[in-house]
């Protein structure tokens, strides 16, 4: 029994989500191998070999793997899939995009967003925006899984010394072409990996106010910035800041919700945070029901005060 983890990386280094996925794979009971598929991804493969508990790294390097196109990535995984009892991806935008292609080609049911490994074939996963936890058992020969990273403590990034094996490149599918990307450059921690997140809601009122009030707080705390769906829909914050059922699922040490009422879809994305602070002037806001510390106040006075007090 061996598990294959498909690493999330930027060719130069491994993304944090890979470490949580390795931890989940180790709980499935066998050896753990890691696939690095990319272009000029030698440094990422070397980093993967250092992860504690990884027995082997498989490195596939080709230009057509540079942008993680699902058609090519899935083919690369399928070429070695028969060697594995478990195939695990982190439940990131990239993982969610590729995994179902692998599962469908193997004719197996996919297990999305697992938060716990019960046995090698039984897993827990949230459904209905986290309002229920389903325990599901897979009868398929290969378990194809995405891992909700907040459910597993990361494996240690160092301490391992796995061999790196090269996987032969395949051919480009030719069906999809990468045209370009707009990735926001930021010195802030990544939302899903941040220890502290400050998040703003509709009460901010405008993109200018959002920036004016929330950014200094994030700077002061070294935090990532998040937002509720209402704030994103209104254009106060970029789309990929959305925390919630269909956005990012986060579980930082500290989550500060400012002017967020707390719809169930938002709570689904952050209620596993260690400490939750809610600042809201509506005493009835549902966010207070999950907050460790609630401050009933106008965020436009409370947040600047908070920045000063920190």
């Amino acid at each position: 029994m061996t598990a294959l983890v498909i690493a999330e990386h930027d060719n130069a280094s491994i993304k944090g989500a890979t470490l949580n996925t390795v931890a989940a794979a180790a709980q499935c009971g066998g050896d753990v191998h890691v696939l690095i598929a990319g272009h000029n991804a030698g440094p990422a493969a070397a980093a993967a070999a250092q992860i504690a508990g990884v027995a082997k790294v498989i490195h596939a390097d080709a230009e057509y793997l540079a942008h993680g196109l699902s058609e090519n990535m899935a083919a690369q995984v399928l070429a070695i899939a028969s060697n594995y009892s478990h195939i695990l991806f982190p439940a990131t935008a990239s993982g969610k995009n590729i995994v179902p292609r692998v599962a469908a080609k193997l004719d197996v049911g996919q297990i999305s967003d697992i938060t716990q490994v019960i046995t090698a074939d039984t897993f827990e996963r949230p459904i209905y925006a986290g309002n229920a936890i389903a325990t599901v058992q897979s009868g398929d020969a290969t378990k194809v899984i995405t891992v909700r990273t907040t459910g597993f403590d990361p494996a240690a990034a160092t301490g391992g010394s796995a061999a790196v094996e090269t996987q032969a490149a395949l051919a480009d599918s030719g069906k999809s072409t990468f045209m370009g990307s707009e990735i926001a450059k930021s010195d802030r921690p990544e939302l899903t990996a941040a220890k502290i997140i400050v998040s703003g809601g509709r009460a901010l009122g405008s993109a200018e106010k959002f920036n004016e009030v929330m950014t200094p707080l994030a700077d002061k705390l070294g935090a990532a910035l998040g937002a509720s769906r209402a704030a994103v829909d209104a254009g106060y914050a970029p789309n990929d800041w959305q925390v919630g059922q269909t956005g990012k699922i986060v579980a930082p040490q500290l989550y500060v919700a400012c002017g967020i009422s707390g719809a169930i879809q938002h709570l689904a994305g952050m209620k596993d945070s260690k400490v939750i602070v809610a600042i809201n002037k509506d005493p009835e806001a549902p966010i207070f029901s999950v907050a460790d510390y609630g401050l009933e106040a106008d965020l436009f006075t409370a947040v600047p005060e908070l920045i000063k007090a920190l």
Partner: protein
Amino acid sequence: MKVIVPVKRVVDYNVKVRVKADQSGMDLANVKMSMNPFDEIAVEEAVRLKEKGVVTEVIAVSCGVTQCQETLRTAMAIGADRAILVETSEELQPLAVAKLLKALMDKEQPGLVILGKQAIDDDCNQTGQMLAALADLPQGTFASKVEVVDGKVNVTREVDGGLETLSLTLPAIVTTDLRLNEPRYVTLPNIMKAKKKQMDIVKPEDLGVDVSPRLKTLKVSEPPKRGAGIKVPDVATLVDKLKNEAKVI
């Protein structure tokens, strides 16, 4: 070019659902059901492509119980031209739905299939990608912009950290993210018109698809409750608690 838009009947997103006392599943008796919100966005996008003259026919498809006819009527009220219900009372998992859709694609030969990225009940986020794999077609998932140009479709996708744009050969599979469009309100005249549109009903057996579930749900339980916290009177107390009690700053 034809477009197929699969739509799923799910618990309305405003309903707070509860786990059954015997942990066998969710209590869905007398709960309001609606079209999955992401699927509504998919229907809207297909109808807009038709209004632009890029698409000639929009076919809504639903797989599930008889009541899915209501969901299909809603899709036709938004502007879909006709509908197909694959009727079954069996539990359908994403792989089974993808196989049913593949069988319908073989019959209808659409240039595009536009699906919601995920259903808000099982939160799987699988069907579109599975369909793309089974049909050996390219996919543009989590779309925030869709443009059909010169026999290709350019899809701007929401990815971690921002956006990326892919160009896909047609036929292709697209799944919708939240901000692709804002679905129109259905008007009464359009609801009336939708009642007269064609709806075909088939069974999984007619399509030669085995829909047996692959995952067995052993139990469904309530998530652990967060202990109720406290209200603090002012910012100073908040900072003190965070520093000395929670020790997170």
